[in-house]
């Protein structure tokens, strides 16, 4: 597990698929840690990359930018970035930003694996 002041990241192995599970606030201070984790996946051209946001309490534009960067890095190899278990408060931020048109979103990790 890697941690910083406002966020922790746990990697969960779900039936052989690694799921990135951050918890806490993803903001300008903590997003570099998440970026490092996501980039380590995209460098290996892993697809899909699943991020579970169940324990995330807040995400700002720096956090969203981190996902956007990962998505753009995955585009050349047709990789899929899947976001699962999105709490209502985070979904509201995503809806405000119309990010449902950008990211593949799933209710559960299992749905993300199947989808």
């Amino acid at each position: 597990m890697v941690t910083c002041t406002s966020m922790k990241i746990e990697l969960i192995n779900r039936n052989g698929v690694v799921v990135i599970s951050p918890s806490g606030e993803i903001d300008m201070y903590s997003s570099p840690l998440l970026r490092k984790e996501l980039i380590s996946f995209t460098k290996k051209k892993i697809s899909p990359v699943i991020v579970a946001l169940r324990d995330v309490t807040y995400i700002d534009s720096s956090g969203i930018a981190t996902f956007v960067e990962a998505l753009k890095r995955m585009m050349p190899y047709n990789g899929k970035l899947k976001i699962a278990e999105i709490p209502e408060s985070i979904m509201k931020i995503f809806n405000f930003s119309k990010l449902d048109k950008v990211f593949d979103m799933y209710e559960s990790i299992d749905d993300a694996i199947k989808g």
Partner: protein
Amino acid sequence: MNKYAKDYKINMDDDKKISVNETYLRTLEKRVDDLRTLIEVSSIISSTLDFNRLISLVMEKAKNVMNAEACSILLFNKHTNRLEFAYAISKEKSTASILKKTFSLELGQGVAGWVAQNLQTVIIEDVANDERFFKEIDRFSGFTTKSLIAVPLVGRGGLIGVAEILNPKDKPCFCHYDEELFSTLCRQITTAIENVKFYQESIEMEKVRQELEIASVLQKSFLPDSSVFKRGAIEVAAVNIPAEQVGGDIYDFLEPVEGKIGVFVGDVSGKGVSAAMYMAKIISDFRYKARLQEKPNVALGNLNDGLLKGPMGMFVTAVYIIIDVNTGVLSVSNGGHPPFLLIRDNKVEVIDIQGGPPLGIINTEYPVSSMSLNRGDRLLLITDGVFDAINRSGLRLGFDDLVDFISNLEDKNNLVDSIINYVNEYSEGTGRSDDLTLVELRYN
């Protein structure tokens, strides 16, 4: 006791005399010299903040007082996790340059690497019998190491580096006293290096501060000259308060065609100089692409196309309204920006139109919506910094609570000022972490 040593009689007072032998006297003299050197090193440390000059002076003193053939300092590079030769002196001047160019050590590699890893001083009588010694250094430098002392330099922030003193000139190996003396010198060297680094960092910070100041002035020059814009029955006023000296919020007013005005509000992801540069590109692209374009969705789409090749993690949320200055009929397009508010008959309505994603992420078309304003209607466009304000308990204000506050305001005439005061009061003592932009459009 040295059998050749002479006894000396020293008169203390008229009636007291003590005898010392020559060896003891020489030892005392040496210790006084050593103390003098330590005092000199202290004064050197406070005399200069030039790292190279300081290390050169201090290490020269160390080499002389230790009566050693050579000495060196390796600094710990936190980014590479390696020790790098920062300074080396020996009778062969070329040794230092060879070491600086050729060598860096992993933690645990060689004697210095071992010392850095274990944070322990070592004294080695004969390096030939010590398996920690890294022979490649001697092979490249041409120097023959026989005996050494290596001391970890540990400051307030952890490991700084390792100092080594090599080959005593007047004896086969260093002794415990040498270790104590060199360790004392190393504590002074550590303080000196920390002072210089702190000074260098403060200079760098000052440079960054000055550059941010310049960037802030430049950024403001990209926004409209006046924060108030009037055409016909339409009046637009904007307030932009960056969280740092340079922020990523944008607003712009323009007249794409006669009789219509365009109001653009955007929020670039991230903050600081990179966000400000991205913002500068966006605003210049926007002014070019919005010219003569009556459809806000087409203007946003064209702007989006131009941003797709931008930096990977950067995007901008934006809302663009084009309004007829006579009829109050407007068309609006939204790219991932928060909803805007309509204030009509002292009531507040959230206008959440169908929109597209933020600009600069994917190739897409943006939908457009239309609405008509009545005389006296006002629109309030904001960036998320307004409702993302945090209070002392760590709670965010939130969009809904902001709307409630505005709805409950009895006097909505000075709406923008009331909101800024409310946000400032809410976040008092916490420091604002995001830019804050409010644009109010009135149809008089």
